[in-house]
């Protein structure tokens, strides 16, 4: 089994950390193989941010995502740019708080109000990445929930473990909930 996951959005949303946690869960706790990589804007300032994780039962021969089994979009740009590079039977997970996409336009789309849930229910927009992580592992089974929990605890900033574990669980539940309207969530394009 091999899973190619791509987490995309804007700098500062924590995609890279989410990717690291996924890979760490696979490598350190599920005894699988994984590679994690990311791209930066020019000289690491601003702009788009992207993390990629390949998880496999065998050593990974090519470390980057070629066709994603799951694409997480936390910005409009991310969807526009990478939507096409997703496998036919893949999942395009949309943070409907940030991205305006008609879920009916593409059967692969799964829309969830990730950032809103983080901000409103968990009180901290900053844990949106871990909420997304919960959704992802639930949708893909790329890593075990147990491994994910351990990796979250090991990798988030000290003192935030509890909040993040809670976010992870909330994300897993969110995956199973019915989506609310993606359209209604999204504001203007906002931040550069």
């Amino acid at each position, binding site marked *: 089994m091999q899973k190619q996951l791509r987490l995309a959005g804007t700098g500062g949303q924590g995609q890279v950390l989410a990717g*690291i946690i996924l*890979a*760490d869960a*696979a*490598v*350190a*706790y*599920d*005894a699988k*193989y*994984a*590679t*994690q*990589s*990311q*791209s*930066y*804007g*020019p*000289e*690491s300032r601003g702009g788009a941010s992207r993390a990629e994780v390949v998880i496999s039962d065998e050593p*990974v*021969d*090519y*470390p*980057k995502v*070629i066709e994603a089994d799951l694409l997480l979009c936390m910005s409009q740009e991310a969807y526009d740019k990478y939507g096409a590079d997703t496998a036919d039977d893949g999942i395009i997970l949309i943070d409907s708080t940030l991205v305006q996409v008609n879920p009916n336009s593409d059967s692969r789309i799964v829309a969830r109000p990730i950032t809103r849930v983080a901000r409103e229910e968990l009180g901290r927009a900053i844990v949106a990445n871990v909420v997304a992580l919960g959704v992802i592992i639930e949708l893909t089974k790329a890593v075990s929930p147990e491994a994910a929990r*351990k990796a979250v605890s*090991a990798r988030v900033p000290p003192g935030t473990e509890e909040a993040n574990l809670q976010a992870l669980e909330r994300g897993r539940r969110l995956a199973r909930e019915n989506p609310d309207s993606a359209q209604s969530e999204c504001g203007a394009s906002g931040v550069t």
Partner: protein
Amino acid sequence: MSESGRRLMQGNEAVVEASLVAGCRFFAGYPITPSTEIAELLASRLPQVGGRFIQMEDEIASMGAAIGASLAGTKAMTATSGPGFSLKQENLGFAALTEVPVVVVDVQRMGPSTGMPTAPSQGDIMQARWGTHGDHPIVALCPASVGETYAATIRAFNISEALRVPVVLLLDEVIGHMREGVAMADAQNVEIIDRKGPSVSPSEFLPYADDGTMVPEMAAFGEGYRHHVTGLFHDETGFPDMSAAVAKSLMQRIMGKLDAHRHVYEWTEARDTEEAEVLLVTFGSPAQAARSAINRAQREGMKVGEFRLITLWPFPEKALREAATGARAVIVPEMNLGQLRLEVERVMGCATPVYGINRTDGDIFKPDEIYQGIVEVYSG
């Protein structure tokens, strides 16, 4: 930290952890993308093991400080990327001539000049060999994965200490920033080589005498073996001597020691080369896409082999020639305009045509691209 015994780490992190295992206790650096994590991590890791980290005013200073520390008896490293690697060249030549062990990491980004700081490249391959003025001995290693980076870092220190030669560890942005699970070495079970100290009393000590191995014994400052180190040509006492005879024998020894100790640094990997009709000569991160492409080609019945270089310099000429025996074509995929290919062409002569698959747009190879290249050459 890990239940599987493997730890998820970045290539840059692997350099850090492996350097500590190898005995590195001094790092001098100046930040530059995409090598900066090496400095950042060592800033906290070195004090934890009683080592010393210093951020210098620039790369020239970092290179000099690392050499100074090594002369004081401490295994030392510095790390940088293209622009900084250019600046280190003068002092790198000093280390080569004075035979000071030191490891220089160059995490390659797209050049020339400031270029594309966050894009990967293998554009410094030839610079690693020829960047400083004058003929000089140097060893360069170029691992292809995070795990191999860990091993290559330890090996870089071992080579440097064993042969008293600066070793350049060439990563690229992909490997530097990629994370993989790495099986950590058990410090007890890893071979660690330390420079050989004086076997004689201070009064008999000749700091640049050939003891038969071509690698002189080395005393650290402060150990009682007072001696002189200079970047001028020098005789075995270490003092300047500009005579032709001394110059000749010094050059012969410092270049010859590399010829004499190939086994210490030569590191290549041949896979399915015996039967191969087309041979891929790979190195560094593109080897991963190449591996994937080769697997596919082999699955489709093509006789394709892989000769992978971890040691780039001195170039493993003989090993390549052996691996290529029988191949009707050689392909070299590189994230540059074909630098290593020049050397491969030279070694292959006209017997075997050499093709390059090249990229200098800041993007990495996809397996498909290399696969296409294989198909073309195979059928062409």
